[in-house]
């Protein structure tokens, strides 16, 4: 039996998360690389991609990506698994962030905060978001499809208004306030026994704060991703998939639609809340305006670019959405160097680059540039807007769909099938 692909002799075997030996080896290797990635180890840091991600600027982005992935996993539960369009995901992220700062922040004259440790505020951020998800479920479950999209869009604007009403919680709208750091204390004592947000000494390593944060987030993300992937093969996961595929048929088969949709909302909001709290804590100071429609669309974009309905797609999409900003900057920088190097193609690159003197280029390289020669940040937003469209038009399964195509091609190589 061994070695035959796609031959399963029992339901247990087929529904395993990592069905084949190849999967298991790849998983073990992948985890090993992920764990060793941020270190300057003699062999590992010679691998080109790993060395490049181990750089502390890139590692910061990787951390940001991990946090984003948690939120995207939540949206994957709701939109990918249960098939409910949500434009209000950022709202739940904001709820989580506000809960975190209310519980963990330091009180002052015009700010509220209880100064509780992280093991309280991080789960609480998720739980409060989940409770609010349950609270809006009676409205959200009754409406379908695009009506649901607009209802959840309403949540974003109501959330922004609430944040303006209570500047005591999350700080003034365009500024925000200091969020509690990622550090573990038993209760309110002075010195944390584990600090993920400062450079320091761990066992026999000198660890930078990015490396510490990375490990902390990696543990959380692996656990949460494993839980989401596992949910897909439980009773709840199958019920959600049934609702996505045909809600009325699912109901006839005995799936309690209301209960399972509420579950999906609660779980997805939990993930969003945790993600929001971590993000705010990671950045340090987040203006409440951050949790806007644009943030919701970014989550959806990650799902669509990665491939709807797949956990691997969530990772690919998050990687793409977060890293693309930096990639675009690097490419623009590279093009600028090419233009200045007086090489063979310098004229070609010079055509695209503008130095802010009205030389007709398309992309501005000046940091503060705004306006017609587009700044790199605007270019990045345009790129992912275009990518949403392009992927939906030409590759609805996203990056993971491309991966499957490539894999299947090599599976049968040199035969076409």
């Amino acid at each position, binding site marked *: 039996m061994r070695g035959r692909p796609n031959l399963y002799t029992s339901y247990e075997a087929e529904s395993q998360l990592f069905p084949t030996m190849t999967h298991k080896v790849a998983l073990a290797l992948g985890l090993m690389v992920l764990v060793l990635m941020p270190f300057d180890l003699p062999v590992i840091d010679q691998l080109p991609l790993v060395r490049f991600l181990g750089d502390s600027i890139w590692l910061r982005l990787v951390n940001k990506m991990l946090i984003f992935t948690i939120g995207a996993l939540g949206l994957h539960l709701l939109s990918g698994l249960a098939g409910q*369009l949500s434009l209000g995901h950022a709202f739940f992220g904001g709820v989580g962030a506000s809960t975190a700062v209310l519980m963990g922040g330091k009180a002052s004259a015009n700010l509220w905060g209880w100064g509780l440790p992280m093991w309280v505020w991080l789960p609480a951020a998720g739980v409060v978001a989940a409770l609010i998800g349950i609270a809006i479920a*009676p*409205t959200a479950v*009754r*409406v*379908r*499809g*695009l*009506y649901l*999209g*607009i*209802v959840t*869009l*309403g*949540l974003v*604007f*109501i959330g922004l*208004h*609430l944040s*303006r*009403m*209570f500047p005591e919680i999350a700080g003034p709208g365009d500024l925000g306030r200091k969020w509690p750091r990622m550090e573990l204390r038993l209760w309110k004592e002075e010195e944390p026994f584990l600090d993920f947000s400062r450079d320091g000494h761990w066992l026999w390593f000198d660890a930078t704060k990015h490396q510490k944060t990375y490990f902390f987030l990696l543990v959380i993300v692996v656990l949460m991703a494993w839980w989401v992937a596992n949910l897909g093969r439980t009773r709840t996961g199958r019920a959600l998939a049934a609702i996505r595929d*045909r*809600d*009325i*048929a699912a109901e*006839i088969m005995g799936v309690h639609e209301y209960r399972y949709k509420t579950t999906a909302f609660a779980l997805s909001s939990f993930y969003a809340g945790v993600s929001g709290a971590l993000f705010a804590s990671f950045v340090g100071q987040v203006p409440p305006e951050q949790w806007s*429609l*644009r943030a919701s*669309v970014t989550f*959806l*974009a990650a799902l*669509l670019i990665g491939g709807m309905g797949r956990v691997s797609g969530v990772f690919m999409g998050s990687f793409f959405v977060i890293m693309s900003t930096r990639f675009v900057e690097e490419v623009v920088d590279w093009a600028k160097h090419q233009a200045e190097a007086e090489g063979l193609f310098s004229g070609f690159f010079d055509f695209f680059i503008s130095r802010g003197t009205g030389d007709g280029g398309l992309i501005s390289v000046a940091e503060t540039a*705004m*306006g*017609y020669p*587009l*700044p790199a940040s*605007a270019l990045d*937003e*345009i790129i*992912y*807007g*275009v*990518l*949403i*469209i392009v992927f*939906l*038009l030409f590759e*609805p399964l996203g990056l993971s769909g491309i991966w499957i195509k490539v894999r299947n091609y090599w599976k049968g190589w040199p035969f076409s099938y």
Partner: protein
Amino acid sequence: MTVLPVVLAANAVDTFVQTFFRGAALGSLYALLALSFVLVFKATQTVNFAQGAMALAGTWFLSMVFIDWEIPGRWLGGPTWLNWMLAVVVAALMTGVLGLVVERLTIRPLIGQPVFTMAMVTLGLEVVIQVVSVDAVFLTPRVLGVPWGADTFRIGGAYVAWSYVAAMCMAALAFIWAWRFFKTRAGVAMRATAFDQEAALAQGINVGRVFAIAWCAGAALAALSGIFASMAPWGPAGVASREGAFFVFRALPAVVLGGLDSAVGALVGGLIIGFAEVFAGQYLAEHANVLGYGYQQVVPYVVMLIGLLIRPYGIFGTKEVRRV
């Protein structure tokens, strides 16, 4: 975004009349925008989230046409208000063409795909068009050259801005046009397409052309509402700014409340939301310390949520028949 008139009426009756006109005008704007959503939804079964970007593009086109190029003015002479209205028509047409191009490139290939896909494409379009127009075009706020500016006239002791009257007239014209349109051959084809795309194709209806008409007209209507929403009492003295796109997201509750596929629903929903917002802003103002600054901007969403709890498909929306 709603800049309230500074002039306050003397007594309660005048305040009411003034508030009523403000509500009716804002309601007309919402209704106008809701109609553009309904048009696109009727043909494609999709909410066009890019409508805000279209409205933004419309205001920009008007500013280019009327201020920079002086398009009809440089040949016609004539009074300013006439030139301005012609420029508005030109700007709406230009936005219509933009809608046509966008539809042909991104929406037409999706005929027969799930509506979810199409809605997501429009979200992508929204990002692209808005970023282009905000980052590349709206560096400096652009003047629209509205001929009546912020002028008002008086009914008794109540001050009414000319923009209110203009907005109401515009909405009335648009709805009369829509009412006529749904009786024409193209309108009937659109209704058939909305009902079932495949069946419509089998009947010999050119679904692609229906899509094109809906997107063109929808974009033009969005441009008109964007232009009128940028006028004096709403925008700061007839200046186009990126706020225009957010105005559109406040109009979405009107569409949903009235029902996504009903032109009558667009009118009623728009007026309800407009009145609710303005009356709440006027008469709950002394509770602002409890409700928070700018609470009237959230009123549309609250009204929508309550409305949807009672009627999940909106007041005039067709209840979706679900077949197994």
